[in-house]
């Protein structure tokens, strides 16, 4: 874990209430998520890492409350204090040859970095991305640039398969030996139950410290209590109790 200052290089609206923020700063960002201090707010906001290249950290977040609203109004050039190196992420090595990525809404961003890592290991990657409607779709072009196949579902049917990610999977029947999922808990529950074969899910929980010492985000697993922020947020499918 490191605490350092990052400068906002980009903070732009990319979909309904959804912003892409690029932060520039020193140091390696190697965790699954970062914890951002927002001026005037007590607790930091944990955001998953969408992409990181030498010195440039990309995050995608949705305005859901006062804190993220303030974040969305911060101008380019302002500084943020960020904790990095947090969380145990997806394991690209768990997939042998063919990976299935299943993302829903704001669960989509962290799968982009995973897709790049899987491709770097020479694996075939199919991404299934689910949204409520067309104006909430994010990162579709970025995924198409990286993945072998991208399937989109929208609840209202405005783009891609009408329905949920599971409907898109049933329609496209992508081959995979390992799946990775991130999205609303109810979506991940259905995905874990519907898909045969092994996989892992990135959970969401209201966090305190973000670094494993306050025990504010504990969940019960088949292996006993685990901290979402430190032991996760990514857990193997077989560990999870839904």
């Amino acid at each position, binding site marked *: *874990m490191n*605490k350092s200052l990052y400068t906002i290089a980009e903070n732009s609206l990319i979909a309904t209430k959804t912003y892409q923020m690029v932060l520039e700063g020193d140091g390696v960002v190697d965790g699954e998520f970062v914890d951002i*201090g927002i001026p005037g*707010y*007590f*607790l*930091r906001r944990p955001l998953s890492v969408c992409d990181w290249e030498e010195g440039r950290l990309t995050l995608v977040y949705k305005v859901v409350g006062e*804190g993220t609203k303030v974040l969305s109004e911060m101008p380019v050039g302002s500084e943020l204090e960020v*904790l990095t190196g947090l969380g145990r992420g997806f394991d690209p090595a768990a997939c042998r040859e063919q990976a299935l990525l299943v993302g829903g809404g704001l669960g989509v961003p962290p799968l982009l970095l995973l897709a790049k890592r899987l491709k770097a290991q020479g694996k075939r990657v199919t991404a299934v991305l689910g949204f409520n409607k067309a104006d909430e779709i994010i990162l579709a072009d970025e995924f198409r640039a990286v993945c072998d196949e991208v399937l989109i579902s929208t609840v209202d049917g405005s783009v891609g398969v009408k329905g949920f990610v599971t409907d898109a999977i049933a329609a496209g029947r992508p081959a995979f030996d390992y799946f990775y999922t991130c999205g609303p808990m109810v979506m991940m529950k259905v995905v874990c139950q519907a898909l045969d074969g092994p996989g892992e899910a990135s959970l969401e*929980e*209201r*966090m*305190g*410290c973000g*670094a*494993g*010492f*306050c*025990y*504010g*985000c*504990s*969940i*019960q697993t088949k292996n006993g*209590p685990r901290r979402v922020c*430190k032991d996760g947020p990514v857990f193997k499918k077989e560990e999870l109790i839904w």
Partner: protein
Amino acid sequence: MVKDLSVDLCGIRLKNPVVPASGTFGFGLELAGDMDLNVLGGISLKGTTREARYGNPTPRIAECEGGMINSVGLQNPGIDVLVNEKVPALRKVYDGCVVANISGFSLDEYKECCAKADACDGIDIIEVNVSCPNVHNGGMAFGTSAASAAEVTAAVKAVCRKPVFLKLSPNVTDIVSIARACEDAGADGLTLVNTFLGMRIDIARRKPVIANKMGGFSGRAVFPIALRMVYQVAHACRIPVMGCGGVASARDVVEMMMAGATAVQVGAENIRNPFACPEIAAELPILMDELGINTLQEIIGTV
């Protein structure tokens, strides 16, 4: 001039007064890879009970103006794991004052856990939590009346040779009478204060934010109330006080000490800044220089 930050707490020399508060620093081990723990005067370990506890359902955390609410509910691996695994492992990387924080649901549980902590070589001070707002039929129930706080104190003192501190709740009408009752029953020191019972409601969902409905409010916003209680108790009792509540800077540490605290615990600030304690310890000598203080011990209770 070289600054002397050390303080004497019941005959134990702390290299400085900065102590992470129980529940906000795990068992110390969780942060051993991120900082040099040895810059801390002491560490108060996560509250421990006789049996392992999972604690309360989530959400356990709620954001507030100037602080936060927590309702972790004493998640811990139990006293045997504390004394046999956690403390020996911490001792390999930490040479300061180790404070074991003990909670219970009965007098027998307090006695059994404190006796085990007393017998554990790596533990210096036993802090008895009679003020946890997040568990039913225990914790705070013992700390909200002078008679029951004294009863716990006497029972624990009968089985301990190490210094025993009672950690008191601010959710009472007269904290001084409870502090005096603990002192009269033999307490060696007092830690005050624990969190303030609070609540938030999610107005969109029309439900409490915290799964357990209420929780303990702490953070910068409570500092003036905690300071007032430390001042009142330190002036009414002869035993030393560890001041706790909203401390977020070296200035707050000095203020708590002037009010009467011998050591100062940092709680919620660790949750928003995991490096708060080492940063405060590093700031202290600079602030002492600014204020013309050479020996920190000398400012205790000077106001």
